[in-house]
């Protein structure tokens, strides 16, 4: 029982950054913008979060810095793809390349002289897990209540994100823009504004996911701290079928695999780590296959129909 509880606790901690990034990308993609810059934005979020925390000593400032950096990078993507109507895949990939490289560069320049200008190996303020008295002692679900503040925030954020998307005016506009920008435009929705806002807000959430890594999950800065999580998130968005409420399950699954991996490695298993790492992607492929079989269903839950297309009013 204790084993289950501890695996679940790690799964949730590992999944938190994934959930933030997945929610961010769901919002971006719901507006019809595919942002493949996630990996770069997460790395920049992790770096700016840690560096700010290290120098200011304030975790709150660190989170704000990460949000701002994520929003700025996503704004570049929005400008390129919405205003300049550049190819979304190319723009996103270049943001990933830029973000990864720039984060790595800054990691070697922003540190104190005592550490040879490097950030690697330093320890700074971190977001510590806080147990909720009473609840954290419960078997199994106690794992839900031994988390850090970012995870607790998610418990509220996920239902809010769902409500926002499916029950509010903004959510209605957002979904319409991603599905059919021409119709949304004709109905008086400001397509450009919605696309910009969704991309920028999405980018900020993605960067927050990155900051959770350097401030809580594996505190400190290290090269490639995200370990490819940005790419996992792209699969998770599909896995969640663009629904915020479902994002949590995929993230838990991926986080759980992470946790099981820790445990298995500690117990000296013979199952190779690569095999376990592969499982989530296998699950994603299975979902994609199932979706094509289920065509009538995919009309309701599938990818936003306008995903990846630039919109211009007077084009036929």
């Amino acid at each position, binding site marked *: 029982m204790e084993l289950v509880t501890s695996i679940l606790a790690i799964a949730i901690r590992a999944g938190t950054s994934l959930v933030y990034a997945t929610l961010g990308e769901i919002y971006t993609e719901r507006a019809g913008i595919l942002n493949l810059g996630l990996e770069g934005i997460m790395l920049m979020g992790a770096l700016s979060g840690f560096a700010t925390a290290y120098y200011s000593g304030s975790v709150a400032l660190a989170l704000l810095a990460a949000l701002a950096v994520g929003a700025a990078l996503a704004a570049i993507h929005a400008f390129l793809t919405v205003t300049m109507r550049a190819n979304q895949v190319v723009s996103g990939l270049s943001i990933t390349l830029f973000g990864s490289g720039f984060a790595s560069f800054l990691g070697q320049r922003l540190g104190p002289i005592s550490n040879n200008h490097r950030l690697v190996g330093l320890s700074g303020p971190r977001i510590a897990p806080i147990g909720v008295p009473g609840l954290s002692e419960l078997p199994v679900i106690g794992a839900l209540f031994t988390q850090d503040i970012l995870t607790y925030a998610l418990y509220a954020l996920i239902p809010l994100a769902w409500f926002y998307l499916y029950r509010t005016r903004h959510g*209605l506009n957002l979904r319409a823009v991603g599905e*059919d920008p*021409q119709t949304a435009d*004709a*109905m*008086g929705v*400001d397509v450009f504004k919605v696309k910009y806002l969704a991309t920028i807000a999405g980018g900020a959430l993605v960067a927050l996911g990155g900051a959770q890594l350097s401030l809580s999950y594996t505190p400190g800065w290290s090269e490639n701290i995200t370990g490819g999580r940005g790419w996992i998130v792209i699969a998770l968005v599909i896995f969640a079928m663009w629904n915020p409420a479902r994002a949590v399950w995929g993230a838990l699954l991926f986080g759980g695999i992470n946790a099981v991996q820790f445990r298995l490695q500690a117990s000296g298993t013979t199952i190779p780590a690569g095999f376990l790492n592969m499982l989530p992607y296998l699950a994603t492929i299975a979902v994609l296959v199932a979706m094509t079989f289920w065509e009538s269903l995919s009309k*309701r839950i599938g990818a936003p129909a306008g995903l990846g297309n630039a919109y211009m009013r*007077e084009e036929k």
Partner: protein
Amino acid sequence: MRKAPPRFPKGRFYVVMKDRNGEGAWSQDLLPAQGPRARGDGELRERLVEMRGIRKSFPGVQASDGIGLTLARGEVLALLGENGAGKSTLMNILAGLYRPDAGEIHIRGERVRIESPRDAAALGIGMVHQNFMLVDSMTVAENVVLGQRGLPFVPDLRAVKRRILELSARYNLSVDPEAYIWQLSVGEQQRVEILKLLYREADILILDEPTAVLTPQESEELSAVVHRMRGEGKAAIFITHKMEEVMTFSDRVMVLRRGRVVAEKTTADTDPKELARLMVGREVLFRVEKAPFTPGEPVLELRGVSATDDRGLPALRGISLSCRAGEILGIAGVAGNGQRELAEVVTGLRAAKEGLVSINCVETTNASPLSIIRRGVAHIPQDRNQVGAVGDMSVAANLAMKGYRSRPLSSGGIIRPSRFRDLARRLIELFKIATPSTETRIKFLSGGNIQKAILAREIGACGSLLVAVYPSRGLDIGATEAVRNELVAERDKGRAVLLVSEDIDELLSVADTIAVLFEGRVMGVFPAAEADAERIGALMAGMEEGGKRT
């Protein structure tokens, strides 16, 4: 929600009614809402819309060349013109989708700038577009409130649904507010579009070819709705190229040609013949000249063919037909009764589940499209933009798309662009395709010209059988005439033509033999000379010859 008080035109008699809640007063015109009003009446009524000197050009096309237009309250104006005459462009400007290069717009006497559809909606202007503006994956209610001004942050969808049901009862536009758009038929989708405008209380309605996708009965319902709205003091502009619609719907008609107004008439003072002449700029033949019917050997034969539609539901149920050389076999039926699937099975684009297809006595059941093309089969598909042409490729490339595999367009697997251009120039000349150049991307042409280009390409590739699916759908008179003449010319050359159409008059004037499809079955096959519109109509509705419904 606060409703604007109803406004009544002067000089008419009205009764004001209220619904049970005492809200939503509406008025009913006591004078019969048929026929146009007396001339001069327009002077008395409030002028809702005035457009002056509107200009708009697209690359290579002057779509609107200084057009002026007025619309009074309680008036229905028809904008008549051929494809590419500038009707839709003008209305897209009024609806805020396009910005004019020059010109003024006055709404209720005030000069306005309409920069976006949002501005247009604020002025009470609403448009039902030719390609419906509905988000497929959302419900009717969600679509109705999308983008509405003053919508609360958390919309009360239940109240929205109630109001939709109210409106649909009042205007006789039945639709389920909770249904998803993709579940609805085309006719139902149009009802949603109209409900959207009614919900927003638009009083200037623009309808872009509203009946193009409707059955005759649905058109009549639409006509009733338009008359009712007119009676309530709203005004409507509708775009069309069908003369009968002008006569039944409108009070006044404006005829456009090449971006200019060529005539403006009170509907009562004109007739379809005059309108057709004004629209095309010359006299139009409504009958097609054709040689006597002398059929040869069967070219296409179908024996007990069954197939399913895209959703996997049965679309063809044991079809047996034959089409002979020198014969036009017309397939009649309301759209969605298996016509598209029939054409696709013949051309190899859809698998037959059962049965046998043969072309010139060679079995081609489920053969590849290429091998069927090589048997001399040409196809004018239903969806000319998706299946018939590649929008982002040039006119020349689109015209070469069937012949590029062999000389003279290519040799040894290398294509010869200069020969593409030669071919394109010849076909553009021959088929009178209006295009700025051979290199223009084909999507910039009007629907009629795209269709002419497809026709030109397919007829060039046609050896024995031409399959034409709704070839004149959405085309104006001039283009329709050209298309029909080409079909007959192919027949006179001794080719077999399978013509799918929902226009009974087209079938009666062009086809030699008519087969009626209903729910994937052949209801009857008879010579066109012995057929009449009523009999075909009854079979199309599923009535057996004896008058029984199956």
